[in-house]
């Protein structure tokens, strides 16, 4: 084992180096994950780890493999360390919210006020046919005043969602700051029926807001909202998305969301992967990114404390001779450290070793990467299945998911028995989805739940 250990990375600062292995076995890998806790100095930096699903390849033939670039936020020592937030809560106050939903939404908003302190900035926007900036961006010092305004919200009219988000962005912009967490939290229970309303338009807006340094979390309430629109908006701006079927769970979701928001440790995380000569990019899984020639660029809006976010890149590696070591990629990460208010850089090199011995190749397989890659690949199938279902091809959609279940089982069988539990659970989920997608009953609700799970997996959302 130790023999295969290859030191790939020596960071720019020698003191910051991390041990990353291209040939890491699972046991070693888990040790590496614990690394940030072992060195207290590292605890103030993002933990970058790049792995190949197959660090040893059979010589004499080209093959496909996954590169996983994983980023984990460091632990915040105390509450006082947290970054001040700049939050816009954009509440749906259209007629459909009337009653229980409005009551719960108010409760959740009141809870949000309590979770913030006077260093934070909050604005509250209500939208129906028109948009009202109920609380313009202000420091959360007079909580009583803000709460009284929340209590007065009345539900009526249609849903000008786009305009609501626009006004939310306008309020955030008043105090837009790289050293704050800039987030819009959008709550909606209905179709956007006033103003721009296509998922692509909202996605485009999300992408632009993300470039400005904001992210949008979208919370869909009930079964009346447009999940495509909400996931696109959240996805392009790298916010969270949640499906809240029961209004009573709204407060809980707000609690989670604020848990995330208030634990942001890095923002504006740029990931740059440069592939070595001969290595061809095939696709990025999950997150959107730019693939131009051999350079792959992607960006995360933020990293939360002690949460792992990753990207998966499928590549084709050319053939090589046995015992040859080939450089595969170099990974560069550039981010804003919120704790120390400065930009920091990390980098990592990946290489592959060729071997003529099939057993060696099999032994070297990085099983956690395979698990994640399998999940993400199947997630893509699941997206495709939903698209088929939307076109009315229910049987084909069901078939695709059944095939996916087989695919998961097949992959799982190559793993050590102790690592199989996770994929077993996942295959269970997919086979349930396969049943749901063929059924007509409750599809609207199931689609929302499915979309939300899809999103969670894609973005590694914690809640």
């Amino acid at each position: 084992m130790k023999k295969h250990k290859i030191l790939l990375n020596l960071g720019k600062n020698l003191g910051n180096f991390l041990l990353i292995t291209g040939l890491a076995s699972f046991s070693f890998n888990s040790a590496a994950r614990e690394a940030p806790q072992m060195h207290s100095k590292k605890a103030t930096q993002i933990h970058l780890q790049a792995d190949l699903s197959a660090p040893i390849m059979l010589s004499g033939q080209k093959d496909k493999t996954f590169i996983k670039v994983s980023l984990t936020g460091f632990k915040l020592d105390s509450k006082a360390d947290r970054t001040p937030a700049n939050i816009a809560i954009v509440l749906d106050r259209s007629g459909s919210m009337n009653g229980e939903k409005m009551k719960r939404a108010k409760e959740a908003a009141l809870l949000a006020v309590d979770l913030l302190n006077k260093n934070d900035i909050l604005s509250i926007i209500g939208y129906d046919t028109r948009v009202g900036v109920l609380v313009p961006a202000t420091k959360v010092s007079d909580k009583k005043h803000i709460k009284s305004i929340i209590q007065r919200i009345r539900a009526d009219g249609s849903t000008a969602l786009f305009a609501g988000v626009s006004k939310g962005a306008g309020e955030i912009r008043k105090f837009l700051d790289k050293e704050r967490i800039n987030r819009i939290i959008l709550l909606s229970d209905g179709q956007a029926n006033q103003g721009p309303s296509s998922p692509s338009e909202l996605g485009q807006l999300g992408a632009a807001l993300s470039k400005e340094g904001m992210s949008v979390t979208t919370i869909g309430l009930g079964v009346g909202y447009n999940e495509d629109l909400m996931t696109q908006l959240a996805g392009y701006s790298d916010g969270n998305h949640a499906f809240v079927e029961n209004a009573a769970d709204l407060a809980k979701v707000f609690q989670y969301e604020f848990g995330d928001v208030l634990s942001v440790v890095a923002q504006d995380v740029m990931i740059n992967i440069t592939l070595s000569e001969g290595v061809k990019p095939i696709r990025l899984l999950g997150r959107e990114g730019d693939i131009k020639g051999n350079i792959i660029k992607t960006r995360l809006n933020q990293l939360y404390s002690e949460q792992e976010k990753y990207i998966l890149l499928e590549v084709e590696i050319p053939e090589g001779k046995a015992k040859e070591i080939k450089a595969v990629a170099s990974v560069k990460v550039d981010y804003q450290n919120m704790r120390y208010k400065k930009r920091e850089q990390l980098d990592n090199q990946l290489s592959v070793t060729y071997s003529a011995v099939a057993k060696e190749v099999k032994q070297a397989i990085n099983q956690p990467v395979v698990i994640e890659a399998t999940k993400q690949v199947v997630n893509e199938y699941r997206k495709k299945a939903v698209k088929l279902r939307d076109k009315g091809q229910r049987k084909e959609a069901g078939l695709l998911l059944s095939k996916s279940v087989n695919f998961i089982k097949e992959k799982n069988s190559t793993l050590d028995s102790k690592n199989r539990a996770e994929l077993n659970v996942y295959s269970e989920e997919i086979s349930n989805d396969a049943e749901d997608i063929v059924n007509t009953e409750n599809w609207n609700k199931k689609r929302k739940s499915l979309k939300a799970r899809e999103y969670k997996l894609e973005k590694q959302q914690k809640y």
Partner: protein
Amino acid sequence: MKYRLPIILVLLITLPLLLLAWQSYRLLNNEKAVQQAQFTQLAKLRQQQSINIIKDYFNKHANQWQSQIPQWSLTESSLNQIIHQSPKINQLFLIGTDKQRDYPIESTQYSKSTHHFIQRMQTIWDDPERLFSNDQQYDQESQTIAPPNTKNFKRKTSNFLSSTPVKTVTKNASPSTRSGWAMWHWESSVIVIYWHQYADDKIIGIELNSSLLMADIIALLPDTDGSVEQQHYVQRLINGNGQIAYEWGDKKLNFTQQKNLHSTLLPYPLSTWQLEYFASPDQQQAFGLISLLLLGIFAILLFSMGYYLYQEYHREVHLAAQRVSFVSQVSHELKTPLTNIRLYAEMLEDSLDDEPKSQQYSQIIVNESQRLTRLINNVLSFSRKAKVHLSAINIDEEIHQTVEYFIPGFKLRHLQVNFQLNVNQPIFADSDGLDQIVNNLLSNVEKYAVKGKQVDIITEIIPVLEPNSSAYFILKIRDYGKGITQHAQKHIFKPFYRVDDHISEGVSGTGIGLSIALQQAERMGATLSLTPVDQGACFEFKLPIKDLN
């Protein structure tokens, strides 16, 4: 005659009402025109504020890019970087000096977004000059347009619309540097380009992120906060596809009527977009309502006044009828004792000896009771419509008898009666009626024309003159008194009319004599009229003669 009063009353009410209504209608129209003008002015003013916000937004970005673009390095990686980092920029393109596209670089494998971008921009690749040559289609100034009816101008194909007039950057050393906006529709969305031409003729174009553009404009425009300034009007932004992009203003107001709507096209480069303004109709109709209310109150007043007058009139008529009926009842009651008085007076006269004094006294009693009888008969025939009994009578004799009664009275007053009775044949007439006519005419002579000293009583027959007419019996009673004035002649046949001058002074009378005479004449089918004579008055009774068979 019966409906004269109601008609007069209705006219009295409706005429001023109509006049008032017409006046207030005109006033209302004027007011409306004034209000419309005010509305338009206010609408323009408020819309201008919104338009200025949008104008400023575009100007700000134009200025910003004008200073930034010359500093950009035009390598592929740095352009990639710009797209990657600028939220406002969706895509970029660069056209080289040879009018060919330099960026995005020609490739076999475009990313999805680049592929779409190249499709959208086909019109630019065909002819980059279009960016700055096609500005004539639109005025830079926004223009007022009619309420939107033709909203659906969706463009499936890339329909190149416009570009701003060329702006020369004077700050720059090179005079050939220019820049501006361009806009067109692609499928259902709007494409907004900011372009910049370098001194060496290279053109760089920035495609704005249209969603962010929309969001930015929404964020800059006012929200709906329910403040006082926002009361009574709403505004909304309509995109090139006729969809509402954003609306704001008075919470209680919705875009309901076309009437109070004012639309303005947005300035460049969003010139296919519209700004609509709608104001509360309450403000406008308040004046009309008030004037209508006033008019209503006035009408009610007039009507109640008219009704009161009508009621009063009816009361008077009723009262008069009651009086007449009372008088006739009393007269009827008087009739029986009077007959007895007359009877016994005549009997007394016969049985009296020839002592002249006693004879004279009883004669007076008889005469006066006869006079009273006539009076009572007059009253009764005025109040009760007696039936006409036509019979063949010897008319001269009948008249002579009636006149006989008056002779003693006339003698006392030295009035001589001249008879010229020329009808010696029976004629169909109502003897009671004729009696009454003669009675009334003679008692008038007795009252008013004693000073004339004589009275002529003439009867004659006028034979058939024309084939279709009949013969007439004529009775003329003429006195030589003061006569009747021109003015009084019109009224003498009306009941209760008495000639109001020195003639009637000190003379008692009921004022119904002539009207009864006329009434009786008419019942018989005859006429009674005053014929002009040189002295005194002459009444002519004219009865068509019916064939005795």
